[in-house]
C-alpha cells in the first residue's frame, strides 16, 4: 500500500499526539515525593515552617575576583599552615584579606565545605583549656579595654 504525503503527515501528527498523551498520563499518575511537594501551601504556616530558622548570615553566596580563585584552590589543597602561608605570601595584604574573607564566608554557608553555618557564627568548636599560671609567671600578652 502506498500512502500519499498528506496521509503520512496525518499519521505522524496522530502518532505524536498519542505519545504526548501517554507521557502526560504517566506523569500525572506518578506518585509525588511527600517531602518536597510540588505545590506547597501558600497560606498559613505549618508547624515545620514555623520552626524554621534561617540564620542571618546564611543567605548570601560569597563572591571573589575570578583571578584569585586559583589561589583559593591552592589553599584548599595545601595540607600545612606553612604551605598556606607560602601561597598567601605572594599576594598583597588586601588580596590576602579578601581571600580569607571569601573562604570564611564559603565555610559558613549552608552549602560550604563543612556546612557549619549556624546562628552563633561568631563561635568556634574549640574548648579553651585554661590553667591559672604560677604566681611568678610573667604574662606574654595582656588583654585590656582598648
Amino acid at each position, binding site marked *: 500500500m502506498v500512502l500519499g504525503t498528506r496521509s503520512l503527515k496525518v499519521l505522524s501528527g496522530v502518532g505524536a499526539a498519542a505519545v504526548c498523551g501517554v507521557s502526560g498520563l504517566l506523569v500525572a499518575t506518578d506518585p509525588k515525593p511527600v517531602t518536597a511537594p510540588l505545590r506547597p501551601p501558600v497560606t498559613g504556616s505549618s508547624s515545620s515552617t514555623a520552626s524554621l530558622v534561617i540564620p542571618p548570615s546564611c543567605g548570601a553566596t560569597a563572591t571573589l575576583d575570578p583571578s584569585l580563585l586559583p589561589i583559593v584552590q591552592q589553599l584548599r589543597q595545601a595540607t600545612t599552615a606553612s604551605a598556606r602561608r607560602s601561597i598567601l605570601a605572594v599576594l598583597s595584604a588586601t588580596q590576602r584579606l579578601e581571600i580569607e574573607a571569601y573562604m570564611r564566608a564559603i565555610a559558613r554557608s549552608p552549602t560550604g565545605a563543612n556546612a557549619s553555618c549556624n546562628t552563633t557564627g561568631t563561635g568556634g568548636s574549640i574548648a*579553651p583549656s585554661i590553667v591559672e599560671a604560677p604566681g611568678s609567671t610573667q604574662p606574654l600578652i595582656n588583654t585590656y579595654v582598648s
Partner: protein
Amino acid sequence: MSTPTSSDVRHVFTAFGGARCEVIVCDGNQDDASAVVADTYAFERQLTRFDARSELSRFNAAPGTRISVSPLFAELLHVCLDAYALSDGLVNVACLPALIAAGYDRTITEVRRHPTQRTPSTPRREMPALPDVLEVGNTWARIAPGCAIDLGGVGKGWLADRLCERFDNAAINLGGDVRTRGAGPNGAGWAVALCSGRVVTVGDAGIATSGTSGRRWPGGHHLIDPRTAAPARTDISAISVIAPTALHAETLAKGACLLGIGAADSWLEARGAAHQEVVRDDAAKLSRPGDRPGRSEFESDRESATIGLRERGSGQAKPRPGRSHDVSADLIR
C-alpha cells in the same frame, strides 16, 4: 614560665587608633609576622571610620542605597549580624550615630585632647535592631537612612582569628582582642594577663576585654548601650572573657559588660564563655560615666593590675571555667 625563645618572632606595633598590637609566632619567620602587621594596617585602612576614603566611610555616606561591597566588608557585615544575634542585640554595630553624639567624633587622641561639650538633655531612645537597618547581599549592602556603622571590636576580633589561624603556634593581640593557637613558646601554653591582673595559661583560645575604663574622655566613653543609645551605665569597669575565638570572646565581653555584674554570669555561661574575670566599677555607685574627667586607660590599667596582684597573693582559688571571678568582691570580703 612563658617567655619567647630566640627562635620565636615577636612584633609589637600600633594600630586601630593607637591601640597596642602584637604578634608572636613560634612556627613562622619574620616575613610571616610582617605579613600579619601589613594585613592589620590594610584592614584598618579599608574599614576605619576616620578616613572618608575608606570603604566603611563610603558605605556610611550613602544610606538607603545599595552599595557594592568587597568580599571582606560583606563578610564582616555578616559577622556583625551574627554578633548581634549571639548577644541578644547588645552588640549592635549601628551605634555610630550614638558614638558621635557622645563625643567620639574624631580619633580618640583628638577627642581626649579637645573634647566636645555635649548636652545630655536630649532624650535617649533605643537603637534600631541591626537586621532592620542593615541588608547584606552577595556583592552589595545597604544601611537605612539615619544609621551608620562602626565595626569596632567585632572587626578586631574577626581579624585576630583569621591572622592567628595562619599558624599552628602563635598569638595575635589586636588592641586587647587576643587569639592564641598551639602550645606557646615552650610548650606550656600562652600566659595571658586578664583585666584583673590574674594570669592564666591557655592553648587554643580567644580572649577579649571590654569595659568603660578604656576609651574614655571628659563627658563620655566608647561603650554604647543600644538600649539607650548612650554610653553605658554599668557596674563593670572591665571584663575579660575567654571563649573559643577572639570574635566570640569580644562579643560576649561587650554584652556582659552592658548587662552588669548581676546578670553577666548566667548570660555568659549560656553563650559558650569558658571563663570570665570582672573588675567592678566601684565608682559607678557614686558617679556615672562622664563624671570622671581625664581618667586615662593607662590609669585604669594600673588600677586593674594592682587589684590583680593583691588578689593573686591572697591565695584565691584557680579560675573556674564558666564562672566569673569578681576581684573587687573578693577584696571586700
